[in-house]
């Protein structure tokens, strides 16, 4: 905690002309050589002031202001090179202290106002305390366990099935695809599909499947015993369509003999 709040005591604050400077100065006089280190050590004038008050029981108002001012003005030249902005803040703080002090030296008006905020020190104190509050809060925040620094999130691999997810197709997709085709080809009349035609086509596929790998199939095999009239008709239409498309041949060696359905596919491949 103290490490956080103040520079460590074991390491030199700065090396000034080879001499280690082990301690932060007891007041706002900062050796110019150590200034740069100082600016790094403290977060700003409020931080330094707070440190001096806390650590060394510095009486803010006891600081020899004239000397301080003279010295700080000298810093301006040194600091102009790099951290001018930060230097300015230290100067501003010094100016504020001097203002407070000089105001307090003035004779106090006999009739006091009731407004406390006229006290020039009140504002500085408020700021010092608010800063200290946040400084402590920062330290507490830093003490809270933090992801990555103090703990690690668990992350187990999800084992995925080897099979990739397959695209889904629904009947609307198919219909839309078909419509697109029809529109594009302007062949709607020719390719208009009716329920009956679809049914015939379905049976065409079935007959071709039945014939697959076989030389022939008997005509009556095509009609299952449970087939209704409609199916018989559709199957017959399918057969005719297959003949028309030269996908099958039908033969009958003698009248009233067995009718054979042969796949032209099989015929040519044999």
């Amino acid at each position, binding site marked *: 905690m103290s490490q956080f709040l103040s520079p460590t005591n074991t390491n030199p604050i700065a090396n000034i002309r080879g001499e280690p400077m082990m301690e932060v100065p007891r007041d706002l006089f900062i050796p110019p050589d150590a200034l740069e280190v100082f600016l790094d050590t403290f977060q700003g004038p409020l931080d330094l002031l707070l440190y001096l008050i806390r650590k060394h029981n510095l009486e803010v108002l006891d600081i020899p202001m004239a000397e301080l001012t003279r010295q700080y003005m000298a810093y301006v030249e040194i600091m102009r090179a790099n951290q001018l902005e930060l230097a300015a803040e230290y100067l501003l703080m010094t100016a504020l202290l001097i203002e407070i002090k000089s105001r307090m030296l003035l004779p106090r008006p006999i009739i006091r106002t009731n407004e406390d905020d006229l006290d020039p020190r009140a504002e500085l104190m408020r700021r010092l305390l608010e800063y200290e509050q946040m400084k402590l809060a920062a330290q507490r925040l830093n003490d809270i366990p933090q992801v990555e620094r*103090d703990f*690690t*999130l*668990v*992350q*187990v*691999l*999800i*084992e*995925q*099935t080897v099979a*990739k*997810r*397959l*695209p889904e*197709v629904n*009947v*609307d*997709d*198919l*219909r*839309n*695809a*078909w*419509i*697109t*085709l*029809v*529109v*594009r*080809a*302007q*062949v*709607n*009349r*020719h*390719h*208009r*599909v*009716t*329920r009956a035609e*679809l*049914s015939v*086509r*379905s049976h*065409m*596929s079935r007959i*071709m*499947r039945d*014939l*697959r790998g076989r030389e022939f199939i008997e005509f009556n095999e095509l009609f299952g015993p449970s087939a209704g009239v409609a199916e018989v008709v559709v199957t017959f239409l399918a057969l005719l369509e297959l003949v028309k*498309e*030269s*996908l099958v041949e039908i033969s009958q060696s003698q009248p009233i003999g067995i009718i054979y359905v042969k*796949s*032209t*596919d099989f*015929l*040519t*491949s044999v």
Partner: protein
Amino acid sequence: MSNQPISLLPSNLSEPKDPNQVKQVLEAALLTSQDPLPLSELKKLFDDELSTEILRRLLEELREKWAEGSVELVCVASGWRFHTKLEIQKFLNKLNPQKPPRYSRAVLETLAIIAYRQPVTRGDIEEIRGVSVSSPVLKVLEARGWIEAIGHRDVPGRPILFATTKDFLNDLNLRSLEELPLLEEPGLLVEQRGSIELLSVPEPIYNSSTPESL
């Protein structure tokens, strides 16, 4: 934090004092690692003071401990790692519903042609689509088990005839091809697609244009 002595593993002992603690460390390392951890990495957890055999034994014990759990410890080529069991996946998928992939227009149109005009050859499909059908398109559908070759047409080149399969019907929740939506009702076409209204006219001009457009 690093200043604290690790009581678990005094550096002068090759055996850890508390195997349970070692297992906890192994477990935590494996649960938090994105990649499988080889034994050589796991050894680093204990400043290489544990022997390979001891680590192996403890990892086996860990594996057994998790056997009943939702995730399991496995040893893969590059080391040890935890992963979820497969049966959990269907639940986890609900958290990250990925958009299902879509088939290309070429695949869908080819499928539609095969479904509605089967049995058809590749030539038939090309004729209707007006463009050539690449092999991958047919392969995708065959691999899916939705179309199959059911024979050849007896013409020069003996082209393969394609038809849809039973799986196709099953996967689309159809009992038969007749349940495919039909396109004969002109009203339907108009409703769905204003642009093909013209097509719904009962007698379009098709005779002359058809051969050219194909």
